């Protein structure tokens, strides 16, 4: 039985640029199953980040519907949307988006503060999560004192603070070197396999291909094709030869 966690119906997003209207998404229909690792791929400007924002309730579609866990996102109140962002989803961004005035530990506890978790409990959880991402010894450093890879690890720990069922990652490796990028991908993949978190990642990093269950190719605001893992493996063999 398929357990669909995310479903989009004819999602259209238009941006007004002066007198022009830019159609970033032109009717997207996808379904994502629970526990899947999905990569949204496409060149920059293809609309993959826009779609990412729609799925994460970070922006509203101009037309169409987004359903998450069977809930129509457009029918939620402001408070429900805030609770949704707080509990159901963890976000990881290309530029980390850590609050630079809070330490690694402070960044990880913030979503738990919003969730109303007690101070003792959130401190323990933050320590556990930072340990898990390998930052146990740099917990009280400010983001500015950490490397790119370490910052992204903090962001991953923060994304997991309230045990979300979905992790959304927007180009998580784009600002990182190959080796650090690989480590971050492995970490995200581990969450996916060990904790059963659904991972939806917008990327154009080919390293993401071989960990994905499915790849959704986005081009000009439309789904160009959806590839399954077995189709991917063949292509990775070809790509691997050039890339390494």
């Amino acid at each position: 039985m398929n357990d669909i966690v995310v479903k989009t119906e004819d999602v259209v997003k238009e941006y007004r640029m002066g007198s022009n209207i830019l159609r970033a998404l032109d009717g997207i229909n996808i379904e994502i199953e629970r526990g899947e690792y999905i990569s949204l791929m496409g060149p920059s400007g293809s609309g993959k980040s826009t779609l990412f924002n729609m799925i994460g309730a970070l922006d509203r579609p101009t037309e169409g519907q987004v359903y998450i866990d069977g809930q129509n996102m457009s029918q939620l109140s402001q408070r429900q949307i805030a609770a949704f962002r707080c509990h159901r989803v963890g976000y990881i961004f290309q530029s980390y988006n850590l609050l630079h005035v809070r330490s690694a530990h402070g960044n990880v506890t913030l979503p738990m503060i919003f969730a109303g978790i007690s101070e003792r409990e959130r401190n323990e959880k933050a320590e556990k999560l930072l340990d898990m991402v390998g930052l146990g010894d740099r917990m009280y450093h400010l983001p500015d004192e950490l490397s790119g890879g370490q910052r992204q690890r903090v962001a991953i720990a923060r994304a997991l603070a309230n045990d979300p069922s979905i992790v959304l990652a927007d180009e998580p490796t784009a600002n990182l070197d190959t080796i650090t990028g690989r480590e971050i991908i492995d970490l995200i993949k581990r969450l996916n396999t060990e904790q059963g978190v659904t991972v939806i990642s917008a990327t154009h990093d080919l390293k993401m291909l071989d960990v994905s269950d499915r790849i959704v190719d986005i081009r000009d605001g439309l789904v160009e094709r959806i590839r399954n893992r077995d189709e991917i493996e063949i292509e990775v063999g070809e790509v691997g030869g050039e890339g390494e």
Partner: protein
Amino acid sequence: MQQRTPIEEQIDLPFVESLRISFQSLKIRFGRSIITTAGITLGIAFLVSVWTNNEIGVALQESGRQSTINTFEETTEQGISTKDIWLIVMSLIVCVVGIANSMLMAVTERFREIGTMKCLGALDGFVVRLFLLESGFQGFSGALIGALIGTLGAVLLGLKDYGLDLFFYFPLLPAQPENGPMQLGVIVVILLGCILGMILAVIGSSFPAWRAAKLPPAEAMRTEV
């Protein structure tokens, strides 16, 4: 598609939590906070010095009719002259624009932070409350320091003009001379300066913070300064 547990409503945070977060932010951003606060301090110092200077002038002018101070030969009218009103209005404008500008800048450079907090589950109202607290504190402390500096400046200027007579007729408290204009007194001027600084700082920061909090997070995080 299965219907899962419905999405609950986000809770309100206790006030103490907002207070703690806003003070933490002020503390770590200390250098930047000082610059913003200095903007408020300067504006209020200018306003209060001009105003107090005027109060002192009027007070000594009043007393001059009974005593022997003759430094006002050039002043023909009684009370506040048009020139003085002009000066006070100008300093008020400088103060309003200066404070609004420094608060606007301080909030605009934090749009990304606002977007991020919303991603993590912050309610719009919570974000606005944080900025209200931060700017209220900055506004009050900046304005208080500014008012004291301004008063000190006016007193020094007064000492130069009127010598020690200044202290005999110092207009500390409000007074209503028999046939002169109402005098506010320096204490009231300082108080008004503090209140004005705080109000301007709060308006100057919560208005853009409210606008940013209303934006979808994706848009707030896209904003480049």
